[in-house]
């Protein structure tokens, strides 16, 4: 099955028939509900406190239903009018907006206690119209999202990237806008159950500024269907990133802090190691590695 992102822009792809199909399909309903529950868990809202949550790409309100069940008030935005009309017919609790997230969110500063997005963000990476620049749209989106979140609030965005490049583009854009956080990959070893959750923190509520990254599910070769159990042991699957603007990672440096001479032995070993991890064919290290060639006769 091809990806809907490759078929057409969201406001055209999700037409009336597609919106109906989407909402009445029990499999989609179940997956959406499960992903929303997981996103809500990662959102880590204070328990027993009714919160105000923004749902980006709310569609027909399947994710919103889960939010309402948990006692939260939600505001949903989506670019597909037919989807929103289905939501109105279903009499969802949240407030709905016809909105293109790539045009920025103009809510007042700090109003939302959290934001979720289920399977929507990857649409931003497409240039569907003349004048659409995915990088610009992503930056505008993350910038304005940061503004409308309360201090210390989180945004959990579930994405279906079409490859590592796209995921990288999204995380880089988020990081540039001041978010900290990272990617949580549930069931990394399964092709079908694998889910990417981008967890972003807008500043931090704690004083020391450190935030604990949530743990991924199904990391240790656990089956995809028994997702009720939480894996607690280790979470090596979380790609952490920090705000790069604070202290950019410096060039390759020696212990004394001076810049190493270019193509020294250390530099060569380092580069070979890097290429090995990339899976390239690299000659083994030896005592001759990084040595200068003798001059010609």
């Amino acid at each position: 099955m091809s990806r809907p992102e490759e078929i057409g822009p969201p406001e055209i792809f999700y037409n009336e028939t597609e919106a109906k199909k989407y909402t009445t399909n029990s499999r989609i309903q179940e997956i959406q509900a499960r992903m929303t529950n997981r996103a809500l868990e990662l959102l880590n809202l204070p328990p027993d406190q009714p919160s105000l949550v923004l749902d980006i790409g709310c569609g027909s309100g399947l994710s919103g239903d889960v939010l309402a069940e948990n006692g939260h008030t939600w505001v949903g935005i989506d670019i597909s009018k037919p989807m929103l009309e289905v939501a109105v017919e279903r009499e969802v609790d949240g407030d709905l907006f016809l909105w293109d997230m790539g045009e920025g969110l103009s809510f007042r500063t700090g109003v939302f206690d959290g934001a979720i997005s289920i399977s929507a963000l990857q649409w931003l990476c497409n240039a569907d119209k003349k004048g659409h620049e995915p990088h610009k749209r992503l930056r505008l989106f993350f910038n304005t999202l940061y503004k409308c979140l309360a201090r210390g609030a989180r945004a959990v965005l579930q994405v279906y990237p079409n490859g590592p490049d796209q995921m990288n583009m999204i995380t880089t854009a988020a990081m540039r806008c001041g978010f900290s956080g990272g990617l949580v990959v549930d069931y990394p070893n399964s092709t079908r159950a694998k889910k990417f959750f981008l967890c972003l923190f807008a500043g931090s509520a704690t004083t020391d500024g450190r935030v604990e990254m949530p743990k991924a599910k199904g990391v240790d070769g656990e089956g995809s269907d028994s997702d009720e159990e939480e894996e607690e042991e280790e979470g090596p699957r979380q790609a952490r990133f920090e705000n790069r603007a604070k202290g950019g990672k410096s060039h390759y440096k020696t212990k004394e802090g001076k810049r190493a001479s270019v193509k020294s032995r250390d530099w060569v070993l380092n580069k070979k190691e890097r290429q090995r991890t990339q899976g390239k064919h690299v000659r083994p290290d030896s005592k001759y590695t990084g040595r200068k060639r003798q001059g010609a006769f």
Partner: protein
Amino acid sequence: MKILTHNMLMCNVKGCDKGNFPLRIELSEPVSIQETEFNEDFARRLIGKVDWPALAETAAALGLYDKLGIPELPSTPPEAATADDALLKAMHRVLLEVQVIEGKLVCNNCGKAYSVSKGIPNMLLTQDEL
């Protein structure tokens, strides 16, 4: 659209950053009122989130005080700890029970009109407004 969301919404046109809040509501159909469950905790938490001058202005402009039969809301933020039940209930009714169904939202600064139909405001911009 609820008044609560209206109270958070600003004009999204590029360069329109002063006087772009609150958006003026122009109704083409009277507001609908749907009773919802009153939650004291949530109402108390909203005190800090709401922009009170804008809320008082909007409520007066839509004539909500007469319609709902509630006392006038203050235009300065009340103390969250000492707010009494009557105020919280009045707040709840205005913010969460009143729905704008048909009409438009007009920016007082740049004049951009966002149409509202079936309760859904259309916030899409044109190319030159980005």
